């Protein structure tokens, strides 16, 4: 007796019965690793404490930090064979909000040996258009159309002692000034990673003082406020910003 037809029908029925309602997503398997970035902020070797006028930059301004909000986006892993894996995603950081200091990009990355990690500080020109973010807090980073449209890349604000006598406000606001894109393609030093297993954590640290030095000394008495339309200030910050992040640990 040939049992094959019956076996076939039974199998088919099993398949129909269980396929009918089960839409469990496919497990990506072991070939992908979930990245997580833990973000911290310092001023040189001091942990960032808000609201105290106690930090000193290269120009000699003694200053506080009241607000620090910014975007990082498009994390890219560079393989030793020259290929790249870019995660098309954006992350908003409010340094006063601990929930934003951990970032797990939407996509996991393929296993591999990567020579370094890079990302965009701010948003690329395609994303940096009005309406890209509908909801706060991201939408509150709006950069008005009258000055180029899109979003602030960073709001770094506080107070400084001018000439040691008068306390003034400063606003280090970076963004697409007058339509010129000043986002920064940041390459993280010492970011060689071997992606395997299930999770990989990268500890990132921003040194705020690096915004104000190397290669350009940035003085609040020159660029204290109202720099959104100031091309020279935006250029200086773009150049200085290249090294504000470092990798403190990968595990």
């Amino acid at each position, binding site marked *: 007796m040939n049992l094959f037809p*019956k076996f076939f*029908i039974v199998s088919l029925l099993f398949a129909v019965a269980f396929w*009918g*309602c089960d839409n469990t997503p496919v497990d990506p398997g072991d070939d992908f690793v979930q990245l997580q970035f833990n973000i911290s902020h310092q001023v040189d070797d001091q942990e960032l404490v808000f*609201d105290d006028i106690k930090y000193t930059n290269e120009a000699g301004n003694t200053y506080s930090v009241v607000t620090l909000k910014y975007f990082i986006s498009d994390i890219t892993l560079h393989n030793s064979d020259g290929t790249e894996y870019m995660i098309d995603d954006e992350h908003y950081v409010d340094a006063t909000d601990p929930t934003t200091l951990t970032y797990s990009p939407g996509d996991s990355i393929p296993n591999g040996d990567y020579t370094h990690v890079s990302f965009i500080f701010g948003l690329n020109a395609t994303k940096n258009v009005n309406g890209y973010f509908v909801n706060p807090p991201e939408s509150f980073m709006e950069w008005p159309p*009258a000055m180029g449209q899109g979003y602030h890349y960073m709001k770094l604000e*506080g107070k400084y002692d001018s000439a040691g006598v008068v*306390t*003034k*406000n400063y606003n280090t606001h970076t963004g697409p000034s007058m339509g010129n894109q000043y986002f920064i393609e940041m390459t993280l030093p010492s970011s060689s990673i071997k992606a395997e297993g299930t999770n990989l954590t990268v500890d990132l640290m921003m040194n705020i003082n690096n915004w104000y030095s190397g290669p350009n000394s940035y003085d609040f008495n020159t660029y204290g406020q109202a720099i959104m339309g100031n091309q020279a200030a935006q250029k200086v910050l773009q150049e200085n910003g290249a090294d504000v992040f470092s990798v403190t640990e990968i595990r």
Partner: protein
Amino acid sequence: MKNPLLYLLSLFTTLFLYQCNRAPEPPIPEPEPTPTPYVIEIPQGFPDMIIPDNNPMTEEGIALGRKLFYDPILSADNTQSCGSCHAQEHGFTDNLKAFSVGIDGIEGTRNSMPIFNAGWSASFFWDGREPTLEAQALKPVTNPIEMHNTWPAAVASLQAHPEYPDLFKAAFETDTITKDLAAKAIAQFERTIISANSLYDQVGLDGLSPAAKRGFDIFYTERGDCFHCHGTKLFTDNDFHNNGLEVLSPDIGYGEITGLDSDFFKFKTPSLRNIEFTAPYMHDGRFQTLEEVINHYSEGLVFSQTIDPLMKNVGQGGVQLTADEKQDLIAFLKALSDTSFTNNPNYSQP
């Protein structure tokens, strides 16, 4: 059943139907009427509205909330409603009063806040002490210088009323009225109060007068720098700032709530929509006109330790606008007035 294949066929057919839960439901006798879901229409470019899972919008809930909003039954002596200090024609603020007066004739200490587009906020009152509209709605009833009632007394009045028990039943499917249900209904109504149809919304920048266009440029550049706190379609960041007002009272605002020195003298940013209708201005109603407000940011800033870093040129008192620039800015601000909102019959006393 002799044929094993037929047996298997029956078995798997049963299994398939069971898996998919397609068996007919037993007949339900007579369903109770349920509240009608209300889908709120979000204006173009506005964020997603914050609607708590435990207070979905319904036609019946909104209607009940509207009735409660305008009914003095919630006050101790049956003389004051929410609408007494929040008049629609004035952007739901109190007409030209710095401080509203409660049922005992006592003045409050802060200016009546406008109520519109509140469904996009996660903090309420000038000091942000309540995180939801539902929590906010509970407070004026028991405030000793506002409605000066107790919630048990207010609930008893509602329960004894000839209409409210049926209205609560229709909205919340219960015979028992509670203060939380009353607050939920008021919150539902308040979420429907939307203003998004000003002249600027209708015609955009190109359709504005030359003066308003110049005002737009002042507003949206660092010449006036209004946009950092009054940006997006909401014209508010819904955040808290010390905007450089001279300290005239011991009111420390947001600092009272957080307990942080760094938050002293911060108050919530109001929307600039309908600003033409909501005088007087600031948390204490100290400015009677838009001219006075703009003069403050132009020449009147006063330094204090917590003054917001966004306040420009504080040493000289502000951004130093010319007289013409001030008039241009006012022209733009008046383009944010929305009379279809102040006259919307859906928001008026039922």
